[in-house]
């Protein structure tokens, strides 16, 4: 077995394949996306993999297969679990036959997310066991244990990596073996239909079962005590455990430690063994004080004279990521060590560099067209989740609201009812439209709201790395399926006017928006132009500097990263330009021209 450089997300997929998973379903979302992509790429031939239309669909598809005895895995990011929480909460009561692991990636920081929610809470809320890997290596081993536990107890199990585990690579020995799981098939039984009486009985069963799993976890290899000196101890889990180890090694200290890999049901007897003889304990974790509350509870329950330091006591940061530095500082403070103050180097003034729409991105043209069309009129622009959230930045400034997947369509309807005189627009991407936009449009048509829907159709799920969706006609099994047409869906719902236009044709795009906005009721403009990352660039543009009058209109109005000022004239940076032509259409003196096509 050779060691491979494997990303945490790849390790999870490879570990699941080794454990005999038969179906993987999910919806893309940073930092979880590569798990499902790896499962599809490394498909041993008998594995079914799909990008489902959203997380709820993915979880239900996987549950169905698990009812029939198949081992299944669902992947999503933390906010995806909000979408999938309806089936999850009930499935916790109904249970499964085949092992089912719901992988939910949390994003401390947050680095690429709307919230810093903690899936470990979802575990205790739904009463489901949860695994929390601290490294890619551990994730590879742990996912197999998660399947085994799921099957042994007939319950779905949560698996919660965080960004720094998902997107870290490590040297891992990957086994070629694959557990053979022969699904028994679906056996009809009243237990598969959730009813109040059954839920009452299952609730009793779950409350009896969970302390038993907690006891099992006290003997799990993923929870362990590291012996150490003194009356002060450290508790940690997840990636924070890696930071804690590094900080202890930098400080050259070795207090007694408890590393927790299964936060719920909490391994109480192991924790009691750890607490025995200690005076004070520092808890190092990210997101919410989950381990900390368990320890405070345990100390209260057993009248232990141990003080718990952590987020609740203000000794650890309450939001954002931990780092080796922040943990080292907290550790030194806790252990009463003085740290040599590192003088912060005085750096020159540095440019701020927020993420932006790529040069040539068709979304820039779409936002610009709507902005031009509505110039001088009162309008509110409701945005959504995807690359096009970046339409918020100056100079476009075209995202007045952004809440969650699909909310652009429905927030706009509420705004319209509160202020009927103000025109409302909803901007939604093609993948988001299928994931959770359609019901919002049905609501608008049914309840007779006034709304112009702008569909930004770039033929891919761009932000998460170009996954296919129902409008692309490609599946993760490599098959070509029937493309679902967004205009046809909108017409079928009863949207009054549905126009499809190329946003890179500025005049036509502006006119289409003006016409759609002028009509009452629900109207839609579909801006169709593929993402530049999946198309070849067109011949590039250049500024003829003798013609350029240095008015900066191209920079001021478009904010394209490929256009910079070179002295008093604008210039196009050829390594970034994609040849979209928008700047040439905006230039008042025709100074931006297409380069001659190279032979």
């Amino acid at each position, binding site marked *: 077995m050779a060691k491979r450089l494997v990303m945490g997300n790849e390790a999870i997929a490879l570990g699941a394949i080794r454990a005999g998973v038969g179906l993987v379903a999910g919806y893309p979302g940073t930092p979880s996306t590569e798990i499902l992509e790896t499962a599809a790429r490394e498909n041993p031939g008998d594995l079914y993999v799909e990008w489902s239309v959203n997380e709820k669909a993915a979880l239900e598809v996987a549950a169905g297969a698990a009812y029939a005895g198949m081992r299944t895995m669902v992947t999503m990011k933390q906010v995806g679990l909000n979408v999938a929480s309806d089936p999850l909460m009930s499935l916790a009561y109904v249970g499964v036959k085949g092992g089912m692991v719901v992988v939910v990636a949390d994003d401390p920081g947050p680095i690429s997310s709307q919230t810093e929610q903690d899936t470990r809470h979802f575990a205790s809320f739904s009463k489901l066991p949860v695994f929390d890997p601290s490294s890619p290596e551990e994730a590879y081993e742990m996912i197999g244990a998660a399947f085994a536990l799921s099957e042994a107890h007939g319950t779905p199990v949560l698996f919660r990596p965080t960004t720094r585990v998902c997107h*870290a690579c490590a040297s891992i020995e990957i086994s070629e073996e694959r557990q053979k799981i022969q699904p028994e098939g679906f056996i009809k039984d009243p237990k598969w239909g959730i009813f109040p009486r059954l839920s009452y009985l299952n609730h009793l069963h779950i409350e009896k079962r969970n302390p038993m799993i907690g006891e099992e976890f006290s003997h799990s290899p993923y929870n362990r005590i590291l012996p150490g000196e003194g009356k002060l101890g450290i508790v940690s889990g997840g990636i924070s455990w890696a930071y804690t180890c590094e900080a202890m090694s930098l400080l050259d200290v070795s207090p007694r430690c408890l590393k927790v890999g299964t936060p719920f049901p909490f391994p109480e007897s192991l924790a009691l063994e750890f607490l025995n003889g200690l005076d004070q304990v520092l808890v190092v974790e990210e997101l919410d004080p989950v381990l900390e509350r368990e320890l405070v509870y345990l100390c209260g329950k057993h009248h232990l004279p141990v003080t718990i330091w952590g987020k609740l006591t203000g000794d650890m940061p309450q939001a954002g990521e931990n780092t080796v530095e922040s943990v080292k500082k907290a550790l030194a403070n806790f252990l009463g060590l003085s740290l040599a103050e590192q003088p912060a180097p005085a750096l020159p003034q540095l440019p701020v560099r927020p*993420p932006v729409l790529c040069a040539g991105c068709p979304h820039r043209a779409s936002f610009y067209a709507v902005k031009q069309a509505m110039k001088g009129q009162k309008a509110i622009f409701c945005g959504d989740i995807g690359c096009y959230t970046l339409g918020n930045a*100056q100079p476009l400034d075209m995202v007045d609201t952004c809440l969650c997947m699909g909310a652009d369509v429905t927030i706009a309807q509420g705004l319209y009812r509160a202020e009927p005189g103000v025109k409302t627009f909803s901007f939604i991407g093609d993948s988001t439209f299928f994931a959770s936009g359609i019901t919002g449009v049905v609501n608008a048509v049914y309840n007779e709201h006034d709304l112009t829907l702008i569909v930004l159709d770039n033929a891919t799920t761009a*932000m998460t790395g170009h996954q296919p969706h129902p409008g692309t006609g490609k599946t993760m099994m490599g098959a070509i399926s029937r493309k679902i047409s967004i205009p046809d869906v909108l017409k079928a719902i009863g949207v009054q006017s549905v126009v499809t236009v190329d946003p890179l044709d500025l005049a036509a795009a502006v006119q289409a928006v003006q016409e759609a906005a002028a009509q009452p009721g629900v109207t839609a403009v579909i801006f169709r132009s593929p993402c530049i990352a999946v198309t070849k660039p067109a011949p590039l543009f250049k500024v003829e500097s003798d013609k350029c009058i240095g008015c900066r209109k191209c920079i001021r109005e478009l*904010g394209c990263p490929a256009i910079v000022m070179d002295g008093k004239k604008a210039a196009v940076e050829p390594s970034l330009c994609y040849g979209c032509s928008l700047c040439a259409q905006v230039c008042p003196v025709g100074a931006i021209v297409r380069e001659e096509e190279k032979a």
Partner: protein
Amino acid sequence: MKTSLNCLLCGVGGQGTVLASKLIAQSAMDQGQQARTAETIGMAQRGGCVVSHVRVGQVVHSPLIPLGQADLLIGFEPAEAVRCLPYLKEGGTVVVAAKAIQPVTASLGGMDYRAETMLDYLKAHVEKLVVVDGDAICEACGSSRVLNVALLGAAIASGALGVTLSQMEETIAQRVHPRFLELNRKALQLGAGSV
């Protein structure tokens, strides 16, 4: 390969830092070492600041390099190299591409900065500094996408990476499509020539 190496790569989303960090880690593994990396993936990839951490050695816990612990800093852009300078250990090496990439915010606000200001700061604060004319190398190779490999070439020639050019070539051959192999080989050599 050295028994332990902390290498930080930084730049602007889209410059190819992720592939470069994978090549360094893979090359270390090809020499029998353990490696660990951490990447910026997600929203910041769209033209924002990106940082990759590569750590080589037996006892490495955190995927992120602590401040002041990087043996080598590879800056794909001068301002980003300055931003990440606190990661560099005393006496560490910096390999940096000479060209500034102006963020839209700077162009809009008329707050463009000069690459020279950043390079001067680096010269004043870093003893072992290699400045790479990435534009010239990309032009010579006929591709704007080889900056990452050119910087690897320079890092190897500086001696701070602990692998040889031929070892890196082998690693590249395993990971890059044969069609682009010659191109990458040329960029690697030209990068090495800038030291």
